């Protein structure tokens, strides 16, 4: 600790995430994949467990390997090493691979891949050929149409639907054959930004009410935080952290994960007298939302700074403070960002004191 009651260094890396081994829809173990003519593996020993009726979001920047992982799970690509088990049954292990049509999973493509020559009803029927009875097939289509809110659109062709409707059809088509779980590849990237939030909540509702587990790949951390029960962060083919959205957001195990999910302040520390650390005093990472203005004046764990910039963000102001000499004696100035309510905007040049706000469970 660096002489403060409030500012704490990040949690130590902990093995968290899903520990329930009873009902996994999907269990992948040590998946590695290297594409020819590349020096870095696309995936490097990735292991994930997806629980029953759980929605997991796989987050990473483009090139982090998340889509490759999805395609390996679907059987569209083969891994170099590692195993994939679906519903407790091994579908992919060294050299052995069940073809995609026999894995019984759903897949929602980034471009939805709705068959342009088939109308909505026929698109939904396409995956139901294993149901031999016609009436049963029609029943299932009617069921899924209601679930996905597609009533009245059955006769439409894909190009006659809006982006959100196309997404729901793609989702319904994937869910129709009652797959073990569904995979969604960047499902939000083709949506109108104005309506994205509503459509995202709708997607979560449909998946939840179908009681199917889902693995969603996305690069948008806002979507991931809102839609998932569990987050998995992937960087350069390696899994960084798995856990609940709150845990990953507020207790990131690495600076990469922390900055991926939003702005974060890096604040230098100073060691207390008599304490020792192998690499000197560490910096700590604190989210702007974790800092609040205090009237108590300076003291332990308080930071004093001058307001040098203020940007209006709608619900709040993003205020940048210039703080001199936080770690006493270093002589460095540090920029610290805080969020201030829209009604309490400080003026440029003001001097304010901030401290870390208390949160439940700390």
């Amino acid at each position: 600790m660096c002489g403060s009651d409030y500012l704490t260094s990040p949690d130590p890396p902990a093995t968290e995430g899903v520990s329930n081994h009873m009902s996994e829809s999907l269990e992948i173990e040590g998946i590695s994949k290297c594409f020819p003519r590349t020096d870095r593996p696309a995936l490097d020993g990735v292991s994930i467990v997806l629980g029953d009726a759980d929605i997991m979001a796989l987050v990473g920047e483009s090139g982090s390997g998340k889509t490759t992982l999805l395609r390996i799970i679907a059987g569209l690509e083969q891994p170099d090493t590692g195993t994939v088990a679906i519903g407790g049954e091994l579908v992919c292990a060294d050299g052995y691979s069940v073809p995609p049509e026999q894995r019984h999973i759903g897949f929602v493509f980034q471009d939805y891949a709705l068959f342009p020559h088939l109308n909505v009803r026929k698109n939904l029927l396409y995956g139901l050929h294993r149901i031999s009875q016609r009436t049963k097939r029609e029943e299932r289509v009617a069921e899924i149409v209601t679930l996905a809110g597609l009533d009245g659109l059955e006769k439409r062709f894909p190009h006659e639907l809006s982006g959100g409707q196309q997404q729901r059809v793609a989702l319904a088509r994937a869910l129709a054959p009652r797959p073990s779980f569904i995979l969604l590849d960047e499902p939000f990237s083709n949506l109108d930004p104005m309506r994205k939030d509503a459509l995202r909540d709708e997607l979560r509702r449909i998946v939840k009410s179908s009681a199917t587990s889902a693995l969603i790949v996305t690069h948008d951390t806002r979507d991931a935080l809102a839609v998932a029960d569990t987050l998995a962060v992937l960087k350069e083919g390696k899994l960084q952290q798995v856990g609940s959205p709150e845990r990953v957001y507020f207790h990131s195990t690495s600076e990469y994960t922390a900055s991926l999910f939003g702005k974060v302040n890096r604040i230098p520390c100073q060691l207390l007298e008599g304490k020792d650390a192998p690499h000197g005093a560490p910096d700590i990472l604190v989210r702007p939302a974790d800092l609040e203005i205090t009237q108590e004046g300076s003291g332990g764990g308080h930071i004093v700074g001058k307001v040098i910039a203020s940007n209006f963000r709608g619900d709040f102001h993003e205020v940048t403070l210039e703080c001199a000499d936080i770690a006493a004696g270093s002589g460095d100035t540090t920029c610290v960002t805080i969020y201030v309510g829209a009604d309490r905007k400080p003026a440029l040049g003001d001097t304010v004191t901030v401290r870390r706000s208390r949160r439940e469970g700390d």
Partner: protein
Amino acid sequence: MWWIGATFIALLIAVPLAVVVVTLFEAPSDVWREVVGYGVLGTYVKGTLIMLLGTGLLASVFGIGAAWAVTVWEFPGRRFFSLALMFPMAIPTYVEAYAYDFAKYELRDPLMLWIRERFGAEAMSDANGIFNYVLAIFVMALVLYPYIYIAARIGFAEISGAYIENSRLLGRSLWRSLFSVGLPLARPAIIGGLLLVLLEVMNEYGAMLHYGIETLTIGIFNQWYDWKDTDSAIRLAGVAMLVVFAIIVAEMVLRGRSRFHAHHGARRNLAEKPKTAFGTSMAFGFCASLLFFAFLLPLWQLLKLARYGIEKVQVGELLQPVFGSLSMAVLAGLVILIAALFLAYAARIFPGLAMQLLSKMCMLGYALPGAVVVIAMLSSVAAISGLMADDALTTILFTATPIGLVMAYAVRFMTPALAPLEAGMAGIHRSMDEASRILGRSSWGSFFRIHLPLLRLPLLGALIVLFVDILKELPLTLVLSPPNVETLATQTFGLMHKEERLAEGSLPALILVLSGCAGVIILHRLIRRPLRA
């Protein structure tokens, strides 16, 4: 399964060519030494080069000029001309040549008489040769310019619209923009069209024979038929292949790296057009006279001939070649289409280099003149028969059944079938295949339920192109069709060229022209229809 099929189709094309190449390395016969020594080879090469150069140049002037006129200028009847200027494509070159026969009597003969009186008999003989070349080049360019016209129109109108707007926003005048941006951008497309024209010139048999121009194609048939000298014919075929190869390499060099791809938003027509009275009337005049000389005048000549012909011919005599043509076109068209579908889908599920090579190999036949394909097929069948010491194969393929002819058509016309299907396949996003597989369908199931229905339009387009191409094909049909099969093409050739019964021959010729026009109109409609469901 897919591999074996694709390899078989490729072998069908590769084996005959291999036989030609192998023969080239064997010791030449005495006749070949004479062919080379007495300058016969030189004559063939000279004739070919003159025709290539002349037709290529004139067809470019016609094609680029017409495309420029209908895209850049606005004049009365522009929309009509933009379609009608494609019609000359429907006329087989040899039919155009026969239709221009009147030029021989009404233009050449008086001119030659005048030259003989003025400059003597020797000058007349030279002038006669030159006249034949000029007329042949003119006739060929009139029929072949649409290849360049279509390519240039796509280049001008679809790719350049947005760029020209941009160039104007950057401060250049409309005219400067058209010349400095529009023309260079259309260049790769134009060169692609020119390549097709040159390959057609290499292939031409009927028209060259009619004008007495000795090209390599004519030479191959001469050696084969008149001199019964297979060896020299194959060697001439080898020379023809070299010329074709040189043309293709030249095209690749000329195009260089400049294969432009339009951005999605750039596919826009030119919004504003320059309007000056002079330019507008020039554009109109150019289009009108081109259409007149290329299409209306020959059509009028054919109709005039047909008025006499219809009295001399009975309907039954016409029905036989119509039936022969239709059955060959349907039979060969379907065989080629199915093979092309197979190749296109195989290349999709095995996207490796080997499969690409196979499909490129199958496209090779299109570049080869019909005469080369004929020689390659006949000599390879002869070689196989020689190995088996039995003539049964020849009988089965060429005498008793039209199998040999269908195979030859397949070698020559795989490209017009495969190219639109490959383009159509490329238009179907890969995620369609994957979605279908994940929803539990096998690769065959996906093919019938997803790819085949989505390829409807390219399939129809390919079928029409094949149909028209096979209907008017002459050299292969002439040599390889079974003795009892008469087609519109062979009958037109027989009556108009061999027997000089122009009136009777005009009837099958007219049927060919009209069915070609129907094909052009359907294709035009097809291309303009949006490709969605």
